[in-house]
């Protein structure tokens, strides 16, 4: 079993009072709680903090933890021999136990909180983060990953074990979405229902498409003459290139909508918006400069007509 320094996780002295421990926990929870924090690694950091507080806030567990003595974080430790008797049959091995589970087991013993042996109770819910590419999210995909779950064994003691999870992700999932996979959590005990699996979906950004809900945005750069005269362009979409007609007199900032070309939404789909930008050549040879000059001399187009009145004052 590997040692973890719970006092260091909360940033308090080993001699800290219960109030100091609580205050330290609250400060860190405010900063790192994954539901309210935008900090990097908030979730991971909060887990450490919560695990430490779970043990240190309870005088009995804190005393048991202190009994382990001081060690370097990650150092292999063996708890006092009499601890084995706390776990039912006394035949307990600490080798594959996590410190957090050990203290969670202690609660069951001390508080009588563990459920009656023969009562049916539901399996635990598991939660996992799933990172997808844009294309996987767009088309849907089947993923397989390994996770470590903490489940009670036959004797009711919490144990960590590896689990292979295979899930079908429907098309059209978006970054930040949560999916529930019923019955894919821990096994129910004594006929209780199986737990559920909750997936936190992360979708990587795409270099071309920007996702807003179920809609997609892509930049469509046009040359000035294309915008004035109109044109037809080949535009990439996640489902394949399409030919897009650009009407004469198209202005910068206009959004050309390609209906149903966005992310799937149930049986329909969001839209793809092509956002018009007008790009100008920065290097222009003399022949082209002459063409622009001719245009400037002959055109009566005034893009600042609405400002003229103000500047004339």
């Amino acid at each position: 079993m590997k040692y973890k320094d719970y006092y260091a996780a909360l940033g308090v002295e080993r001699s800290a009072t219960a109030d100091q421990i609580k205050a330290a926990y609250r400060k860190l929870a405010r900063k790192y709680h994954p539901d309210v924090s935008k900090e990097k690694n908030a979730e991971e950091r909060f887990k450490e903090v919560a695990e430490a507080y779970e043990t240190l806030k309870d005088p009995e567990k804190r005393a048991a933890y202190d009994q382990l003595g001081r060690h370097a974080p990650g150092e292999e430790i063996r708890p006092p021999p009499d601890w084995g008797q706390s776990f039912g049959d006394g035949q307990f091995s600490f080798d594959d136990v996590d410190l957090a589970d050990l203290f969670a087991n202690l609660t069951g013993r001390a508080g009588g909180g563990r459920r009656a042996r023969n009562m049916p109770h539901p399996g635990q819910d598991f939660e996992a983060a799933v990172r997808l590419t844009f294309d996987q999210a767009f088309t849907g995909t089947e993923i397989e990953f390994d996770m470590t779950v903490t489940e009670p064994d036959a004797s009711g003691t919490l144990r960590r074990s590896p689990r292979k999870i295979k899930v079908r992700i429907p098309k059209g999932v978006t970054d930040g979405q949560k999916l529930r996979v019923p019955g894919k959590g821990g096994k129910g005990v004594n006929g209780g229902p199986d737990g559920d699996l909750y997936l936190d979906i992360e979708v990587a950004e795409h270099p071309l498409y920007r996702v807003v809900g179920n809609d997609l945005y892509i930049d469509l750069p046009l040359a000035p003459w294309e915008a004035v005269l109109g044109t037809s362009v080949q535009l990439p979409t996640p489902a394949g290139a399409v030919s897009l007609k650009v009407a004469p007199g198209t202005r910068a900032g206009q959004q050309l909508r390609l209906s149903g070309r966005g992310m799937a939404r149930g049986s329909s789909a969001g839209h793809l918006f092509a956002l018009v930008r007008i790009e100008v050549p920065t290097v222009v040879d003399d022949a082209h400069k002459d063409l622009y000059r001719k245009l400037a001399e002959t055109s009566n187009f005034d893009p600042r007509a609405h400002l003229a009145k103000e500047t004339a004052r």
Partner: protein
Amino acid sequence: MIAPTQDPPRVDTIAEVTWTQMVTASGLTESELAELVQYGALEPRDPRAATWTFEARWLFVARKASRLRRDFDLDPHGVSVLLSYLDRIEALEAELRKLRAQLG
């Protein structure tokens, strides 16, 4: 009343959950959950029905409520206020994402 988020999390297989499932999945007590319904933080399909059922997306809200309650040591009213702020932040972030996407 808390408005449902703009883009509700969808669930791939079940569209409706029972009161019992809400209790089991959230780990909150029945009275805590009932309080959250009373404050408008959770919205049953038909609030006047004898037994409440929910669209599955409320499961995620109930689970979040449970985490906030436990980790911040809040009562259900405090949880409902925090949830409404988190909802507003989410809506604002969605709006910001949209504006940024339109800017290019």
